[in-house]
């Protein structure tokens, strides 16, 4: 199977995935006995006309299957509906929050992946040496530290005791966002040639992206280490050494390349997980991203926002897995796409 055929086939499979996700999310969010219309209209202060209008808009007076039909009809027309908590279309909200979270996740991965892989290699090739113990301690700490505690401690130490980094936010106090072009402040400030905004946005990214990436770093480190240890003990590594290859070539050309397959899987899944689950980091660092948006929407039963967020995350997971599968083939030529 050619690569493009494989990609198309995987993307077509997105359709049943999306339908499945919408059915599950729709049913789960709608069967809870609640009065979201009154909550959106102002709670006890809500005017009866406003409540009635929101109920009609959300078709809450119709059976659930009919409500789902209306939702699906809107979805086919690329209409995700209105976020009642934010009083604007869900697409507008996602267009603002997704780039913020994506930017944070990219920087988290930029910290986690190289450091994790490098740490894993060092740990494996220097097994039971001091550097191995050190990297293993880092991995254990990364695994076991609650993310909110790490975030609070980093804030406390590096923004309060030693005010090296900003406490929160994406830009300095009162600074207008660059653009808007892509919503990625780093890219937008480069496009607009705004050096101040670029420096500020990079400065603001360090603490939250380290927080978000630290646990992933630990996972990648452990995975790379165990995988490297396994690969370095195989016959073909001994053969490579017997051929007289330098240790560097043995490790990077023969060892690492084969050991990277499980690391790639973990990285892909972590990327999807970070995009959808950065709620704690975003809340503590006051990062206006999708995690906070999703949490607020779930608590406020903002159906359209919950559905919109879930759909986006489902697509992200499918695409991330697709990219990982494509990378498998790139890293290991023995892997055939589509099993052919």
């Amino acid at each position: 199977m050619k690569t493009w055929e494989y990609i198309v086939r995987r993307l077509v499979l997105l359709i049943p995935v999306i339908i499945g996700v919408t059915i599950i999310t729709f049913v789960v969010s709608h069967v809870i006995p609640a009065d979201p219309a009154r909550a959106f209209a102002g709670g006890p202060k809500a005017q009866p006309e406003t409540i009635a209008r929101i109920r009609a808009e959300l078709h809450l007076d119709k059976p659930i299957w009919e409500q789902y039909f209306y939702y699906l009809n809107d979805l086919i027309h690329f209409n995700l509906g209105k976020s009642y908590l934010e009083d604007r279309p869900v697409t507008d909200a996602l267009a603002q929050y997704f780039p913020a979270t994506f930017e944070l996740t990219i920087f988290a991965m930029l910290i986690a992946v190289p450091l994790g892989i490098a740490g894993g290699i060092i740990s494996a090739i220097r097994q039971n040496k001091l550097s191995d113990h050190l990297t293993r301690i880092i991995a254990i700490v990364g695994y076991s530290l609650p993310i909110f505690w790490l975030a609070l401690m980093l804030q406390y130490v590096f923004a309060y005791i030693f005010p090296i980094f900003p406490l929160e936010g994406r830009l300095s106090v009162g600074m207008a966002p660059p653009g808007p072009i892509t919503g990625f402040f780093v890219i937008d400030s480069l496009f607009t040639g705004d050096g101040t905004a670029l420096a500020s946005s990079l400065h603001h990214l360090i603490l939250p992206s380290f927080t978000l990436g630290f646990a992933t770093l630990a996972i990648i480190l452990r995975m790379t280490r165990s995988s490297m240890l396994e690969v370095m003990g195989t016959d073909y590594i001994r053969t490579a050494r017997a051929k007289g290859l330098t240790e560097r070539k043995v490790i990077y050309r023969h060892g690492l390349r084969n050991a990277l397959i499980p690391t790639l899987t973990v990285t892909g899944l972590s990327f999807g997980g970070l995009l959808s689950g950065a709620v704690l980091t975003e809340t503590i660092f006051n990062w206006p991203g999708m995690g906070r948006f999703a949490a607020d929407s779930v608590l406020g039963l903002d159906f359209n926002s919950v559905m919109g967020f879930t759909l986006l995350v489902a697509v992200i997971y499918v695409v991330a897995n697709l990219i990982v599968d494509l990378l498998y083939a790139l890293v290991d030529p023995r892997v055939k796409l589509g099993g052919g």
Partner: protein
Amino acid sequence: MEKSKIGNLKAGGIAIILCAIMILVSFSGCVQQQGTKPTIKNPTTYVRYDIGEPKTLDPAEAYDSASCENVFNIYDRLVSYKGNDTKTIHPSLATDWSVADDQLTWTFHLRQGVTFSNGDAFDANDVKYSFDRVLIVNSPDSGVSWILSQCMDLNSTTVIDPYTVQFKLTNTYGGFLALTAFSVASIVDQEYVEANGGVVADTDNTYLKENPIGTGPYMLDHWTHNSEIVLKQNPTYWGGWAGNHVETVVVKSADEASTRILALENGDADFAYIPYENLVDIRNKTGVLIFQAPSYDVVLGLFDTVSDNTIMADKNVRKAFSYAFDYQSAIDDAYSGNLYRLPGCIPKGMPYYETQNNGVPVYNFNLQQASEILNQSGYLRDYLFKGNYYRFNNTPIRIWYNSGNAERQKMALSFQQNLAKLGINSVVSTEGWPQYLQRMYHSVEWDFMFLGWMPDYNDPDDYIAPFVGSSAIGGDTFNTGWANATVDQEILKGKYNVDPTVRSNAYAAAFNIYINDPSLIYIGQNTYTRGMRDWLQGYSYNPVLEYYYYDYYKAYV
């Protein structure tokens, strides 16, 4: 083997050193800074860290407090409040006003030479346009137009000349002047609105939501949803910029309390919302003050007089329960002392508060009295269950609070314990806000709930009518099912009269009835509590006009 042991020992040593560093760092924050005052951060910018964010900046739609506070600062109204004074209404875009003997016709003379922040001139046409716009738009998203439509329609406002406008009310209304000071009565620029979507019946103007233009002291710089809203000085402001005023206002939406606390302590924030349970974290910190004042936010307990078990249908049961509620525990334990007793519907600071037994609460915690009332009413401890005698055939009283509200949780548990002492079985439950509202408005499966109420405008009609007015007069906002025809009459008498004596007598008469047949437990009035830096000057709390940035500046005095 030996090398491995040495490696493990080294690793253990490093781990101990790392732990020691972390502990030292943790304790380092306990050291108080001494000596000179810290440098004022962002000296011309006021930064507030708060929770929640505006839904809209359009006065015809704004109803939630985060939206209204921005409208208050971007737009002006005909009249306004100053400082922390809630009793006196001052001129703003109107220089003076009068009411005719019929109590229906109000004439306002307008300030001349005022311009909107885009340079357009302000005159009486803008006033008529603004009031009519609210009524026509009839905001489908917020429903806030009800505040004006209580006493106005599209024929009410007349332009007499470019600087005189007259309102002919559809009925007399005692709170008319107070509601013209509320955000919904803000004056918009007719030309600007017409050029940007105009006025469409029953439709909110999506452009004005995020693009406000007013005559107020500040104008919008940018608004990043769920992050911050930034206002800058309006250079054409009619009040002028002589004296001390902040140039920029930044209000950040920060959900995490620890972030707000650190921001306040390191000086990033000048002002921050700090929950009661976190006040201990900022107390005695260098440069940080705790500001407290009585607010108009009240805390209530609701009886469902039409619940399926019919227990709360009897007023004597509700009276007994009013005695069984430990008010002082609510103040001390649930609210950490940040609550004032509330004698009736009208909060302290609002006109006609004194009509409620001169502000002295009728009910105080008294289990003996509660027990006597129940016994005299025939609700005896006559049901034996597991060695204890219970009232109401051991039917559990269902007490609810909304999840995440720690104060209400504590009050609910305390109430449960006190009811148990009376031989009353009860269950305390919690659920999310939308589910809570579903229960309140669409179910009879609850007996007691906690709820709060915040002001729309500074008139007792905004409290007494929704609290104890019946659904027949647009009251019973909490769906307690309680109704009393005489109370309704007195409420309407107070509402549709501008004579203070008549209003006072009406509210006193209503109080004497509803307090002896209580549909609510009047628990208290929240203390407005915020953390602030000592360099912030000019701040005063007004429950009607919560933030007025024009008065603020940063300096040590």
